[in-house]
């Protein structure tokens, strides 16, 4: 039974050397400032290359990792990756077939289009991050919900660049897909965002100052929306 519950143990002897040498190099690593959120894109789910990219990413101050695949990942592999992620104490986001996985703190959160929008949010240094599935990106009610939740970063699985750019403008938020990062048209793209093949750096300080200065909540409008929605309740 023990063998089944704790998978890493069975692989321990194979990867012991890699893990320990990686942890050794990470001693006293730097952390990038709170104003910038770094996302590291891993290209492979292979155990050894994962350890490599974690080491490289954390060494440069990243603590959000991202992987995209259109295939399904076997359950056992997910469990193993979860255990490895926990050693490093990072957030690991995986786009898989029809679902999104987020691993952090010994837990693996599974999301599909049935998961309510409330349960998808997580936050890193006071920025709120959420996930959207293809059919949700162009839905006004979804956009309004995210607006109320004050979201800063959205991981989108929609492939339409028009829809993603619109969403980014609607919410004044960054929208990240597997290929691209969408920045609100209000900003100069190169100033707030830095993207290379395997990493994305987003400036959150600038985003927040724009949001605080230009966005205001009009309670009269919200009351009107609420009244209207309550009136066509099923």
């Amino acid at each position, binding site marked *: 039974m023990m063998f089944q519950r704790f998978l890493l143990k069975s692989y321990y002897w194979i990867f012991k050397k890699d893990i320990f040498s990686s942890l050794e190099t990470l001693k006293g690593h730097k952390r990038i400032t709170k104003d910038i959120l770094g996302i590291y894109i891993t290209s492979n789910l292979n155990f050894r290359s994962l350890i490599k990219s974690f080491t490289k990413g954390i060494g440069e101050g990243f603590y959000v990792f991202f992987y995209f695949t259109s295939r399904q990942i076997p359950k056992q592999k997910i469990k193993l990756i979860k255990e490895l992620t926990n050693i490093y104490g990072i957030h690991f986001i995986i786009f898989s077939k029809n679902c999104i996985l987020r691993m952090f703190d010994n837990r693996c959160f599974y999301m599909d289009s049935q998961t309510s929008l409330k349960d998808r949010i997580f936050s890193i240094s006071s920025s709120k991050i959420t996930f959207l599935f293809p059919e949700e990106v162009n839905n006004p009610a979804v956009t309004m919900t995210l607006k109320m939740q004050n979201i800063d970063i959205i991981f989108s699985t929609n492939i339409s660049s028009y829809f993603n750019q*619109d969403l980014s403008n609607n919410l004044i938020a960054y929208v990240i897909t597997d290929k691209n990062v969408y920045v609100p048209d209000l900003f100069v793209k190169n100033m707030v965002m830095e993207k290379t093949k395997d990493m994305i750096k987003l400036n959150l300080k600038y985003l927040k100052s724009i949001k605080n200065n230009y966005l205001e909540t*009009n309670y009269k409008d*919200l009351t*009107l929306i609420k009244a209207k*929605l309550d009136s066509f309740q099923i």
Partner: protein
Amino acid sequence: MRVFIGNPLNALEFIGTNLILSTSGWLLNNQADVVGILNREYVEIYVNEEKTYLSKENRFLNLNDFLVAFGFDKDILNFDFYFMNLVNNTDLIIFSTYYSDNVLKKMFLLIQSNLRKVNIPTILINSTDKISKIYYIIPNYQNDFLVKDSIYLYSEFKKKEHKFQTFGRYILDLQDTLCSFRVTVRR
């Protein structure tokens, strides 16, 4: 519904106007069913010499069953405003803004993005250095204008067909979030 926006003297050329909005700080009473003067934070409205104000607290003008909503500077970026118009079936949005030309260019991209989600005809009157320019925006992916940089606008608007939007099951998520808006703490 015939609407004129611009200098009230130009409005004399048109007959049978339902709504006249003046951009020049004065107007002739009883020139139309409803007349109004646009300002930065509010609109002065006269109906048969009775004066009322429309502002952020009180945006709607209902004229012969045609619903007009007024928006001001900061409403442009606010998706709440557009969504509120969507659920209230607004027929026309009128923005009165005071942006510089540089900012305005970026604002149009944002307005277009927001309008594509709600699909409501929109007029924007931007005043800089005492000159008001009028823009009539159509929501499409080419970021087009029907009227651009104009000093006055006269147009007839038809009431929109009301489509009942259900938004799918996400309406429950939204209702859930809206329940708590009074207690959210601002960062």
